[in-house]
């Protein structure tokens, strides 16, 4: 049986329900599975989505800043990849906010604060990007384990897959042969504490 591959572009464009529907259409899964409902997060599930939209926002801002910075030591192909990641992060946020609906953060609720010189060199960019992707992957791992709504779990799983791929790319770009062991899930409290160092509340003293 011929198997239709879903490339990363398709993977990103499709919603959780759409992914299953597309897979059904391509014969990967039975058509009945196309009835996958859109994410309907329950109480605690919202926590992971709220965290994700803020953390993905920080990483989008970081990749944008990294792409804008020239002469960092990245090749042209690597820079194009960074730009694609920034776009993918933006797509993640749009989808996360759509799922959160009225609970989605509004423009101006918080702002990204990057450490001084964060995008000055290739080594610094990779270092901070690894830190952010590791935080996201560890939080998504917790989310996949704990969210109640199955469609939300699938959605977080897809975000986890993307960010884990990005983490692997970063490690490869830094010259590391392979990821240094499996990542462990992180408690949301600890994750929030780590994310706070990259956020500020506009018009409020820190």
């Amino acid at each position, binding site marked *: 049986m011929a198997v239709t591959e879903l490339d990363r572009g398709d993977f990103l464009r499709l919603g959780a329900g759409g992914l299953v529907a597309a897979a059904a259409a391509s014969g990967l899964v039975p058509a009945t599975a196309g009835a996958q409902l859109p994410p309907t997060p329950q109480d605690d599930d*919202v*926590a992971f989505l709220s965290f994700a939209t803020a953390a993905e926002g920080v990483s989008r801002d970081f990749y944008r800043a990294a792409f804008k910075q020239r002469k960092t030591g990245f090749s042209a192909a690597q820079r194009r990849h960074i730009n694609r990641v920034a776009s993918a992060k933006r797509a993640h946020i749009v989808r996360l906010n759509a799922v959160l609906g009225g609970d989605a953060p509004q423009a101006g609720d918080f702002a990204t604060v990057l450490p001084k010189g964060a995008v000055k060199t290739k080594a610094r960019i990779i270092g901070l990007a690894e830190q952010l992707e590791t935080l996201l992957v560890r939080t998504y791992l917790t989310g996949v384990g704990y969210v109640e709504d199955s469609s939300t779990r699938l959605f977080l799983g897809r975000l986890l897959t993307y960010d884990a791929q990005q983490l692997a790319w970063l490690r490869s770009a830094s010259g590391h042969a392979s990821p240094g062991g499996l990542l462990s899930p992180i408690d949301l409290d600890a994750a*929030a504490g780590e994310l706070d160092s990259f956020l500020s*509340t*506009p018009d409020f*003293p820190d």
Partner: protein
Amino acid sequence: MRSISNLIRRRLRPTLILALAIGLAAPAAASALNVFAASSLREVFTQIDPSPTYNFGGSNQLQLQIERGADADVFASASSQEPQALFKAGKCDRPVTFATNKLVLIVPKGNPGKITSVRSLRAGGKNLAIGNAGVPIGDYTRKLLRRLGLSRALTRNTVSQEPNVASIVSKVGLGSADAGFVYVTDAKIANDRVQAIRLPRYAQPPVRYQICRVKRNAESAAFIAKVRSGRGRSLLKAAGFGLPPKG
């Protein structure tokens, strides 16, 4: 003797009456300006200008009073919702943002409920003080809890709903509640009775204080100018409020 008495009656009585009239009029003149303001502004507003007659309370209650014709010259709210509603109803001038704030979780000194983070509330069994729905602090708290995925904390814990932020501070400060959600400025004022636990930045709802003139008189304009002046901003900052850009 009679002539002295007559002298007092003729010369001093008008003077005494005049002095009495001035004496009675003076306090009225000093409190001619009625400022309706959110409870969380009590300390700082009385520092900025002690002379007006203040009516501090929950912003939604103050809005209701103004809608029903209460004699307010200025209205300062802990959110934009109430003054904007009055503005749309033609009951105040266009509101302006003059301060910002953030939420914290407070626990009594010594933390008898052993609450170390907002997530401690998931387990339930605590006494929690929050603002009523409709009061800005109550609405902000519910929004924050939704973002943190902790809405169930309101059913898993014993919740007392308070009409304003001062009541929440009081309840927690007295140990009647294990924890409560208030503004960071209130926690600062009551730091001898309560300790604050930070909340994640990503979950913070934007808290913006707005002020508007209910009556178009020079006194109300002068009061708003005082609040937004360099001195007013310094006092707001010292009290722990955030400040919007000047303008």
